[in-house]
């Protein structure tokens, strides 16, 4: 509680500092248009746009958000319309949602508008055809992708560690886990699963009883968890942990576990992803082991990269596709992060300070959420 108070004070300090830095460091204003695939009211994408806007204010970048309202056609129309404007933005940020990004990239190439892909990059045929950024499409300057696979792995490792620590082993001496995936085929889902599986396969005493698709929602997550837990009971298995692909699933599983008489946090551990406020609450109460996430901060990071790029500090390392790590919020940070997220306190991220600390080594800059949050904490500390 004390820590939470401290963090909120620190965030307020950072935000004030950001305003001071903006006018000084970035005399040349940049214009960025973001074609947001989501719609207004969709928390994640609002968070992305919000963090983007906050970062823009901090770095002298004017961010325009266009909402595609969950329609990939609308998204393409918006993207193409932007690059054909008489007054084109300096940069275009698009999301390869439903693999609909390539036509926009091509249109931008034709119009000479530099484009960054956020959250995901070209896949499949598009990737094979258009290759890496800056190869065929010179204006596609790069992609910024959260390292979700690692998030999945991190969650799994946390579950295993907790189970070990609490001795949740079945009669076979093994730690039995349930995986509740989001879906079966989106890259985002597959990446998470992949992280889970990497960990499970790497641990001989860990068994993933099932990896089930909960379709991203709480109800199905609860149902599947329910089914699994009953099955485990009949099977004589001690269920040690439930890996949930997102927070709603985790919350559904949590309720099911409770319904079935389990005591989450003690005789079973559940991990979610997304930093959703209810999940952060559950983490704070010790019901959920953790919730990984923070990838909505990729919005802020993308503005940071474009600012650097525009200022002559290229973010491209060995490849123009940059990944960034997400961050697990456990019980200790839960309250602070709950406030940060719920309050959308992105103004308090001191991006100028982050830039100055890494200097000209833009290509090797730590783009993790933790690093970003360190700016926050620094600001708070400072």
């Amino acid at each position, binding site marked *: 509680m004390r820590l939470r108070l401290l963090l909120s004070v620190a965030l307020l300090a950072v935000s004030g500092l950001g305003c001071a830095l903006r006018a000084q460091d970035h005399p040349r204003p940049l214009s960025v248009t973001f074609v947001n695939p989501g719609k207004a009211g969709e928390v994640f994408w609002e968070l992305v746009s919000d963090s983007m806007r906050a970062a823009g204010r901090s770095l002298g970048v004017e961010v325009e958000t266009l909402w595609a309202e969950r329609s990939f056609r609308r998204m393409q129309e918006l993207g193409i319309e932007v690059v054909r404007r008489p007054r084109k933005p300096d940069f275009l940020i698009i999301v390869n949602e439903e693999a609909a990004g390539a036509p926009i990239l091509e249109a931008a190439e034709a119009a000479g508008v530099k484009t960054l892909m956020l959250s995901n990059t070209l896949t499949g045929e598009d990737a094979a055809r258009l290759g890496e950024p800056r190869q065929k499409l010179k204006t596609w300057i790069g992609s910024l992708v959260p390292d979700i696979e690692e998030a999945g792995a991190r969650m799994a490792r946390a579950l295993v560690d907790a189970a070990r620590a609490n001795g949740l082993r079945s009669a076979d001496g093994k730690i039995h886990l349930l995986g509740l995936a989001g879906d079966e085929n989106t890259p985002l889902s597959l990446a998470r699963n992949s992280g889970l599986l990497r960990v499970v396969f790497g641990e001989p005493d860990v068994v993933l009883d*099932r990896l089930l698709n909960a379709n991203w929602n709480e109800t199905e997550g609860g*149902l*599947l968890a329910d*089914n*699994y837990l009953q099955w485990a009971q*009949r099977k004589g298995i001690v269920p040690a942990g439930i890996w949930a692909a997102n927070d709603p699933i985790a919350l559904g599983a949590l309720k099911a576990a409770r319904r079935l008489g389990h005591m989450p946090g003690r005789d079973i551990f559940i991990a979610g992803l997304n930093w959703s406020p209810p999940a952060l609450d559950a983490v704070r109460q010790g019901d959920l082991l953790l919730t990984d996430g923070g990838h909505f901060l990729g919005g802020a990071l993308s503005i940071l990269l474009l600012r650097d790029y525009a200022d002559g500090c290229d973010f491209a390392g060995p490849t123009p596709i940059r990944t960034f790590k997400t961050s697990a919020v456990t019980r200790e940070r839960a309250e602070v992060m709950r406030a940060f997220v719920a309050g959308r306190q992105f103004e308090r991220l001191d991006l100028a300070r982050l830039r100055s600390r890494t200097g000209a080594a833009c290509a090797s800059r730590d783009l993790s959420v933790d690093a970003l949050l360190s700016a926050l904490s620094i600001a708070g500390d400072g």
Partner: protein
Amino acid sequence: MGHRMLSHADAPGDAPIRAVVSELLWVIVPVGMVMTMLAMLLLGYSHALTLEERLVTRMQQVVTSRARLAGEPLWKMRHDQVAAIVEEILQVDPVVTGTVYDDTGAVIATAAKHGVPPANREVAAPIRYKNGLIEVAAGRLQITYSRETLWSQMRKEFALPAILAVVTGLAAILALKLAAHVYIGRPLKNLTDTIVRSRREGRHYRAVITTQNELGALARAFNELQEANAAALAKLASLASEDALTGLPNRRGLHEQLKRASGADAQERCNIAVHFIDLDDFKAINDTFGHETGDKFLIHVAEQLRLVIGPRDWIARLGGDEFIVVQRDAADEATARALARRILDAISKPFAIHDKKISARASMGIALASSVQDDLEQLPALADIALYHSKARGTGTVSVLSRTLLLAHSRARELEMALQQAFAEGQFEVWFQAQFDMQTGRVSGFEALARWRHPDHGLISPAEFLPLVEKTGNSGRLARFVIEQACQASARLLALGHAGLKIAVNLSPSELADSSLVDLVRLLCERHAVPPSALEIEITEGTLINAVADTSAVIQSLRGMGVSMALDDFGTGYSSLAYLRRFPIDKLKIDKAFIRNMPGDKGDVAVVEIIAMLASTLGLVVVAEGIEREEQIRAVRSMGLQIGQGFGLHRPEPFAGIEGFLAACEEETTATHLRAAG
């Protein structure tokens, strides 16, 4: 009665007949139905097996496919999806319940159909889940299903074939019945009807042939049999009225024809004459040349007859050597006699056989239709009477039946009928006629002569009744009577002192052929105490000719006993002089025909003289018969004949008269006679 019953029972039309068609159907239809039912049952059973097999397979497929579908949802614990699959399984018709168990055996989803009969079969399949990495047993899907659907399916699938089978069966029965009626029933009925009708009407009807099958062949064979039977019956009928040898109508045929002729008008009837022809020598021809030749001869005669008769006349053969010619236009006796003459001429034409020529002689009797009122069938019998008369008159003669003939015939018949009574009542008498020694004028003996004293007709001469006695086989009886009377008379003569008077008895050839005659003579002689030498047997030349051997032995025996023998009627027959030497004859009795015209007829005188000379040479006594007049007595005496007999000397009389004749008049009367003659 028995025949009636038999025919009644046999008659096909009387007893109810069961049609062969019906009987066939009674066998075929039940067997066919049973076989069809068995076949359908078998078919149904095998079909049920197939259906059940198919059902089982289908259920296995259902459960396997659904188990595959259920693999992922079950493994992935999408129990709602599992439940949906289970619910879906219920849509499969026979499935009643579906249950999914997970790998712990817990029921994950179950569903049951409501309002259906309970399931009686179950099938299960393991539910497996596999992805690129793992393959695991996720659980088990079990369904239960009902075989009820099988039956409804069976009903559905079998309804039409069953109806078709029944319809086909009925059609087959109908067709069978029709075909059997046409090809079996009708031909059989035709045949039966034809037989019944043929029997009822006594005719040979032909069956109608309606088919070309075996029954058609049977009907054809039946028709052939009918024809053969008809022909055979016709042949039989003709044989009955036809003579097989000559092809002429026989006695029956003759009568049939005459019966038909009786139906003609009066004029036609009156013109008919029946000629009865009897071949005189046929027995000799048969004996000499054999029956085969005899038959040929009869055929020859028939042919000859055909040649001479008129176009409207016809011939019949009554059997043996008897033929009948029916003359249709014999208006009077002369016409009939003319034909008879032609017939005799034709028959007597020589007939060449075996390098010999035979010419037959015949006797004929003619009866004219005018002699009978209506019944032409009597004509042959009447002609036979005339023939009888002809035969009596001698061969080659023709007699026409007349009132006289008819009367004679009826008298003969009457006498013939009366013979037995005559013997029984002793109507026969023996009269005696004296024989005289022509030289001494004394009675030398007597000839015993049979007489019939008929109560109505009076005294009947031997000439009339002897043939009847002979014909009726009574000769022996009469001979016995005569011999006994002769013995009796002889005994009386002896008793009266008239020794040495022989009594002669006439015996027919048949008596002489009977060896018992010898014993009879001996017996009667002994009974009456008469020496056999007192008896003399008179025989005719015919006796010697006809039965030489037997007669000879009897004659020898009689002679041995002392009985003397006399040859009667000498000179009229064919007697050879050799007989006179061969047979032990004591006397020759010259036939009265030679005496009758003496002494006027020089020829007769010469014959008698020669006979007398011959007899004298052979040592035989000669008797002259039929002496009636004085000049005959003188002539006989002058020719040196020893003995004389005749009405002129003594008329035959009963023995009672003889006694008186001998006693009173012997010496004197005889002497007077002799003197008168001398």
